[in-house]
């Protein structure tokens, strides 16, 4: 090869040299940011090898979490890349309305103020007339052993009084009182202050369940320990302010009222951690927790967010599943999460 073929300028301009250094540093910085996000993801999650460019082009990637010793626990992890910065994603997550998608089986969703009252549960009276809601009403009227309430709460139910419709007045009033009281105790004393589920059968505490879920996933617990310590998840009220809500939803063909709380906190390098806990459910499951970690990444020159999501649940009925039944349940949970994430991404990207 002739040296002239290289066609190098004799003297490289000083300003060009400066740009080159700047661009190189920027490139190295971005590469490090990507590498940091991917290696941090690998350090605590099930996803030890992730190709961001490939992930950005594909749907959400899901996998079952590590096997847990407690048979009523189940966990699924997922990750995906989505356009936009983590702060934008966080805001989109916060604003997303699941009731717009019938397939998610959320019949009612209402945000709650920090000091909830029975009036915040007025919508219960207008619950849709369908089989899960009718089952929920019937279970309430006979104080079914499947209902997850405390003995004290059960004593307060009075079947008397009038009111027709899908949700008779005594049923709606009973649940409005239970949910108000539980939401208030969550605000003041966190999950530790929640009354147990001991109306029928052994006493179950939601805080014990969520702590058990985290204890059996040590890497995740360590990754989120600082953040979770500032929330009311698994213990007393934390320093972070929760966004509260309640829902009426369908869990395995049964209507269930549930109370939830969401938290998020920004970290170094525009990262975010977030948590969404369903700390009370009238049936179907004891507790459900979703954790999120969001990192800023650049994919094909565009600012994007790498999202890791860990879904974990404790439910009595999971304890009955063995072998392939458990695999099946994990598959369904993975499908549900994929469906929810796909709908969320479609909505948040403006696509319909």
């Amino acid at each position, binding site marked *: 090869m002739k040296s002239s073929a290289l066609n190098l300028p004799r003297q490289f301009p000083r300003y060009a040299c400066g740009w080159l250094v700047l661009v190189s540093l920027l490139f190295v910085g971005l590469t490090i940011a990507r590498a940091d996000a991917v290696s941090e993801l690998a350090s605590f999650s099930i996803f030890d090898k992730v190709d961001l460019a490939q992930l950005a082009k594909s749907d959400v990637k899901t996998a079952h979490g590590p096997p847990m010793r407690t*048979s009523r626990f189940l966990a699924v992890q997922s990750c995906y890349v989505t356009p936009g910065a983590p702060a934008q994603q966080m805001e989109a997550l916060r604003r997303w309305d699941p009731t717009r998608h019938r397939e998610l089986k959320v019949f009612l969703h209402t945000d709650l103020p920090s000091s909830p009252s029975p009036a915040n549960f007025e919508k219960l009276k207008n619950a849709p007339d369908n089989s899960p809601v009718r089952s929920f009403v019937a279970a309430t009227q006979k104080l079914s052993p499947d209902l997850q309430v405390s003995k004290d709460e059960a004593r307060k139910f009075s079947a008397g009084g009038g009111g027709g419709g899908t949700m008779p007045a005594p049923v709606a009033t009973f649940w409005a009182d239970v949910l108000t009281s539980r939401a208030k105790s969550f605000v003041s004393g966190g999950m530790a202050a929640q009354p147990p589920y001991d109306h029928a059968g052994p006493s179950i505490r939601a805080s014990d369940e969520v702590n058990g879920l985290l204890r059996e996933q040590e890497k995740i617990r360590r990754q989120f320990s600082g953040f979770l310590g500032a929330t009311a998840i698994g213990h007393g009220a934390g320093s972070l302010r929760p966004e509260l809500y309640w829902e009426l939803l369908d869990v395995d063909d049964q209507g269930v009222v549930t109370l939830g709380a969401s938290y998020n906190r920004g970290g170094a390098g525009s990262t975010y951690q977030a948590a969404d806990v369903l700390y009370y459910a009238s049936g179907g499951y004891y507790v459900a927790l979703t954790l999120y970690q969001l990192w800023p990444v650049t994919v094909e020159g565009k600012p994007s967010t790498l999202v890791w999501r860990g879904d974990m649940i404790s439910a009595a009925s999971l304890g*009955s*599943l*063995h072998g392939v039944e458990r*695999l099946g349940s994990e598959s369904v949970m993975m499908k549900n999460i*994929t469906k929810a994430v796909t709908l969320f991404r479609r909505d948040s990207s403006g696509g319909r």
Partner: protein
Amino acid sequence: MKTFVPRSLVLVGCASLFFASSALAEETSNSFWPLSGEYTADATYVGEGDVERNPRKKVSDFDEIDSDIRLVLTPRIKFGVLRLGAEWERFSFGLPQGAALPNTLQSFSTIIGLDMQFSDSIIVRAETQPGLYNSGLGHLFWDNFNMPFLIGGTYIYSPDLQLVLGVSVDVERKYPVLPAVGVRWKIAPQWLLDAVLPTPRLQYELTRDVSLYAGATVRDATFRVDDEFGVSHGIPRLNHAVITYSEIRTGAGFDWKISPMVTFTGEVGYQPYRNFDFYRAEVRYHQDGGAPYGTISLHGAF
């Protein structure tokens, strides 16, 4: 921000994946025993029925007792759920003197299998049952060894609907490869169509602990009779012959969940099909008269 996890995840119950028995139980505590598993112990009595080889060669008025004990451990490993166990199955026939059929068909086999999750929609089972398949305890020889296996997949369309496809392979069987399809469809909260072999059923959940069902049981297995069987029954070519025994029962029954780990099943019905086929020797006895039957079973998972 909303969780969206618990909507419907808990009761998929695709235990009856393919040629497998389902296990029903509530939450079980197996802290005293670190492994999970499933078991079945059942017994069936079939009343007097008839088979014939041709109009002149009939075997009439014989009854049948079937017994089956099966234990499978299902530890979780990285690749899925391992299936390790053993099974003893015995068909005992009250045959009249001179019938060219074996009084007993039985198998002692081990179970080695794996359930794997290929995606969030597909679960695959590969399972083999190496063992001795013969005509009685007095004839346990290695040339009775056989190793039938099956490969089946479940496609989880939704929590309420799963499709099953698979093949059963037995090189000693008349038709070595048998494909099968099935569907498991939760039609309504209390109704379940579990149309998967070997026990397709329509189930109705009467209470939390009691279910009623109507359906069928399909049995098909291959055995080898002993070296002297042909000579002693007047057909020398049946010495050491392979016989495929098949039967179909149709009936109704109930499952009663006695405890989280124990379910009792009772079933009665009619056996409309039975076939003894020494297919290589071209000696076949087919059903001539059906018979009523009754089954009791204890099964569960831990």
